[in-house]
Every structure is written in C-alpha cells, then in structure tokens.
C-alpha cells in the first residue's frame, strides 16, 4: 500500500487543505481507534471518539483560561 492509499495519510492530507483548527494528533488518535476496531462485530467506539474530542475541547479551554 502506498502513502496515497494509506487512510491516515489521506486524512492528514485532506485536513491540511482545509481551513480548520482540528489538530493532526486528534485525527491520528481517532483513526487509530477506528482502524483497530474496524472489523469488530460489535463496535463501541463512539464513546471513545467522543472522549477523544472532549479531551481536546477541555485542553483548549484550559489553555484559553491560562
């Protein structure tokens, strides 16, 4: 599989072309989670995805307060 067809590389490439504050680290973490569980019969990743995003929001909020 080449970089062009590597899902994570594609995600980061798309992100770089968008006007967004979403950090690469968050995308990596979300992809990692989905990648590990993509073939699970019963996936319970939504809560974990939410937790990853909430953690970023909390951190940003904390940084803003500081």
């Amino acid at each position, binding site marked *: 599989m*080449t970089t062009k067809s590597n899902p994570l590389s594609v995600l980061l490439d798309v992100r770089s072309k968008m006007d967004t504050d979403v950090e690469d680290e968050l995308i990596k973490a979300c992809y990692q989670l989905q990648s590990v569980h*993509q073939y699970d019969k019963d996936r319970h990743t939504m809560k974990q995805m939410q937790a990853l995003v909430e953690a970023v*929001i909390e951190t940003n909020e904390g940084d803003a307060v500081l």
Partner: protein
Amino acid sequence: MKLKEMTIYNFMPYKGEQKVSFPQHDTQNVMLLFGDNMRGKTSFLNAMRWGFYGLALGRHLRAIPRINLVNIEAATEGDWSMSIALKFSDGDKGYELRRRVEKKNHVSQPKADADFEESISLRIDGEAKSGDIIENHINQVVPEEISRFFLFDGELLQEYENLLVEGSEQGDKIKKHIEQALGVPALIHGRDEFSGLLKDARRVQANDAKKNIELKRFAEQQNQLEIKLTSSENDLKDLLLQCSDVQMKVDDIDDELKNTEAVQRKKVQLEGLSSERKATESQLLSLEDEQRELLKSAWQDVLYGGVAPLLRDLQARRDSLHNVASEKAVLNSKIQTLQKSLDDPTCPTCKQNIPDENMQPIKDQIDVLKAEEELSIVNPEEIRTLNEKIDKLSKIRSSGEGRRLLHNADKQRKLQVQLIRVDTQLDELEEEIREYDTDHIMRQREKRDRLVKQLARLDGDIETCSGKIGKNTKEQDHIATLISKSAGGQGQKSSIRVNLYQDLESIFSKSIDQLRDSLREEVEHYATAAFSELTTEKTYSGLQINQNYGLSIVDQAGRVLKERSAGAEQIVALSLIDGLNRTARKAGPVVMDTPLGRLDPKHRGNVLKYLPNMAEQVILLVHEGEIDPDRDIESFAERIGVRYRIERISATESRIEKSN
C-alpha cells in the same frame, strides 16, 4: 497470517477426525487438494470458513443450517457433534482456534440450529482467551468481512462481472466487501460516528441557544429540522429494510428457479413444440382442403390423357376439311371469273375484244379448275359433327391435378412424419416434467418480475429520501454555523463542539472519496500487472477500473472491449483478486475452490505459473479436469509444498488422504 493445520471432525462429508497440514515453506507454498465433483472441495473451504467465523455458505452466500453441516453418517450413528480446529500464526504469535457444536442434551433429534450448542475456544501462544473477545481477536487477524478474497469459490468468480453493471445489487455487495478489504471502513465508521456525535452536539447547541433571545429563532428552526431529519432517517431505515426484504424474496425465487432451470427450459421447449404442432396440423388441414378441391376435377386430368390425342386428330381433320372448303371456294371464284371472260370477251382494262385464238386457253383452264373443284369434296355435315365432338371433348381440361395431388400427398406425408416426431418429443418432455408444477414455476417468474420492478421503485424512494436527509443536514449545518458565529453563541462550549464535529465529519467524509480514488488507482495498477502475466493476448494494453472496482480490458488502441468470454472474465477476476490482495492492508493465505474451471490450457498454464506468487500460502482445491496431475503440475512442481486427495468412501462420506 499463516495457516498451519486444520482438524476436521464430522463436518459435511468428512466423517470422524481428519487432519490437514498446510505448507510452511517460503517457496514451496502451494497446497493442492484434488477431488472430483461432489466429493467435498467446497465443504473443505466451508470447514475453514466455519472454523473461523461459525458460518458455512451455500448459494447466494446464504448460511447453511447446522443440521446440514453435521456428517449424515455420523448423525445416523447418533454422533451429532462436529468441530473444526485451526492452528495458525500471525506475526510471532501462535493461535489455536477450536469451534465445536453438539446436540443439546435434552434434544433427541435436532431439527433446527437452536437444537445445537456451540462452543469456541482460542489460545494465543498457549494462553486461553475468554469467549466474548475471541471473535474480536479473530477479526484482528482474519476479518470476516474480507474473507471472500482469501476463501473464495472459483465458481463465483463470474460474479465480479457485476461490478461493471452500474446499480447492480450484487455489484454493490462486492464493492462493499472490496472496500472492507481495503480498509475504507475505518473512515466510513469514523464519519458515521462523527455524524451521530454532531447530531447530539447540535441538539445541545440548540438548547443553549433557546436561552438567548436573539438565538431563540435559530434554536426553534434547528429543532424543527431535527424532527424532520429523524423522520426522514426512520423512513430511510424502513425503505432499506423493505429493499432487503424484497431482495431476499428475489434471491429465494432465483434459487427456486435455478433448481428448476432445466424444467423451465423444457417447459419453454414444450410450448415451442405445441406451437409447432398446431402449425403442422393447420398446414395438414390446408393440404387436405386443397386435396379435396383437386379431387373434384381430377377425373378430367385422368381422361385428358386419352382425350387429348383424339381431340388433336379431330381438330386436324376439321382443319383439313376447312382447308378443302377454302380451296374449293377459291377454285369456284377463279372459275366464275374466267367464265365471265368467256361470256363477255371484252378486256376490262382497255375495253377491246379478246381475240378468239385467246379464248381456247381460258376454256381449257376452266375445265382444269372444274376438274379440281369436283375433286375437292366437302361435307358440311361432317364439319358440323366434328365441331360438336371437338366442343364436347374440349371441355375435358387438365390443370395438372394428378401431379398436384401427388405433390400434396408428399407434403402431407412429410408433415405427418413431423407431427409424429413432435408428438413423441412432447410426450417425452411431458413425462420429464410431469412431477413439476410448471404453472407454479411460470407464476414465480412473473412474481420475480414484479418484485424487481418493486425494487427499482424502492431504489428511487431511497434516493429521494437520502436527498432529503442531505438537504436537511446542510440546513442544520448552516444554522449551527450561524449560532456559532453569533455574539451569543461564539465561544460557547456547545458551539465549539459543533464546529469541531463538523470539521471532523467533513475531513473523514472527504477522505473517503480521496482514499477510494487512490485505492482504485492502486488496484488497477496491480491488477493490470497480474493480467499481463495471465492473459495469452499480449496486445492488450491493460485493465481499466470503474467506480465500483469493476475492471474492463483495454486493447492496444486504448479501446475498452465490450464483450469478453467466460475465460477472459475469470482471468480479469483473478487479476482483481490479486490486485486487491496486494493493495489490501491485511495480507493472508489464499484458498481457492475450483479456480480454473473455465480456462483453456494456455491460460491455465499462465495462472498456475502465477498463483504461487499471489500469496504467502496458496491452497488450491481442484479437480483433475482443471489440473492434470501428470501434465500441468510440471510447470510449478517446485512450488508445491504438499498434495492431498479427497477419496470417496460413500456418497455421503469422503476422506482426505495425503498423496505423492
């Protein structure tokens, strides 16, 4: 992943315990399992599938019930247990997986899946794993979703042609499986989960907005859109369910019709013969009518033979008499003219008297003419009698009735022979399909046509509903953005959350399209490379991939080949499988059931040379018609790690034996 060993117990035709070891050598990586039709090649493939996933597949990829999986001989002897044990490795880890079913204690004679108890155990490097996470462990190594690309039935290779048909149900299913093999689900799941989380975040944002007088209007709109969205989503869910229900009905009818294909063909043949019979009978009736008409005047044709010469004689005689009469009249006229000259010897031209010496020759000529005239005897009575006879005989005419009757009889005889042949065939066909309810089959065909139309309508409704959802979501995004940017919403945690989820959903969504394009490019590249090795037609320039991963052959001039043979179809499908295996993120062994069925010897040779390079382990389940053990193996003998043969014990029992 590398397979090490499989132990089969009472699975389908394999009674008792039977063990197969897979090749471990890097270059001698091919295993051959020879078996005639109906001996258990597909059952071997199913044994492996069932061992991994607890699922054995029949036609239309339908699950085979457990009761049909337990060896019938063993069951008759009271042993209703069945198991598959698989040993394999992944990376540096060793796996031992064992799946077993047995009859529940209180059940005397199992009738349904629920009458069996299933148990599964997994050891990784000797350490037992608990039941609830076993399936996830297996899916990490050999995901079920991608199994069709490493456990595949060669007979189904033709299904890949559906990828070229836009909107084909089968094609959509295969496309989904291909994308699962290529890792697209990680992004699809990510997008879907962000979409769900965004929906919740919008709700929270709308609730926050309600508290702000300026934003209350937006909150209300957002709530209305939310209600509409939920309703549309429910509609879509219903439509998809209906669609799958109708598709299942179509599949069921297809199964039924497939089983009665021969009967249907015979029924069509029967209808054709019945029409032929009717046409023949009608032709016979016409010929009989014609025969009757001919017989009315046929007596004339019979008499005509005798009458015709007589009539000709009479006509000749009459003609001769007419000639004599004419000649007599001419003589009379001449005599009268000459007699006038004697009576009045003045030249009619110069009015001079004719000299006496010239009168004697005239008298002599009159005597000669009178002598002649006396000799010309004409009896008018005779002419009248002749005319009467001729008139009567002339009424006897021939229109070739005799010849035409013979021709008609010949035609009738041929048609009667044809009728006997048709009747015999009809009897035979009726006998062959006597036990089948052919009217029911025809009704099922009509029902299928109706269901297919219903499917098309449902597809249209699904498209409309999806469009509505898309439009609704856009409006929601717009209002969420308005709230986020407004003075009251800016900086609000709920707005930050909505913005973040919107961006994440958008990133995952756009990435899916971009990833698909890249994957298609890569699959096309690898498949073309494989195709150039496999095809015997070296002028082809390669393969071209479409949106559904369907591959078309491109010729030297860059034109797409419109039609291709079943053999070419199989070569293209094998190239696609190879392209997918090389592009896919999870490589593994390849197990192929009857992969060479439609190939000519040259293509078969190319495929056999190529297969060992397709995967780390290549397990071929073949019959001797596909690979001749004496002739075909030579070209890749050095790649064969192990050979087995399925021996027939009885119609319901087979044994796997190692062979040289």
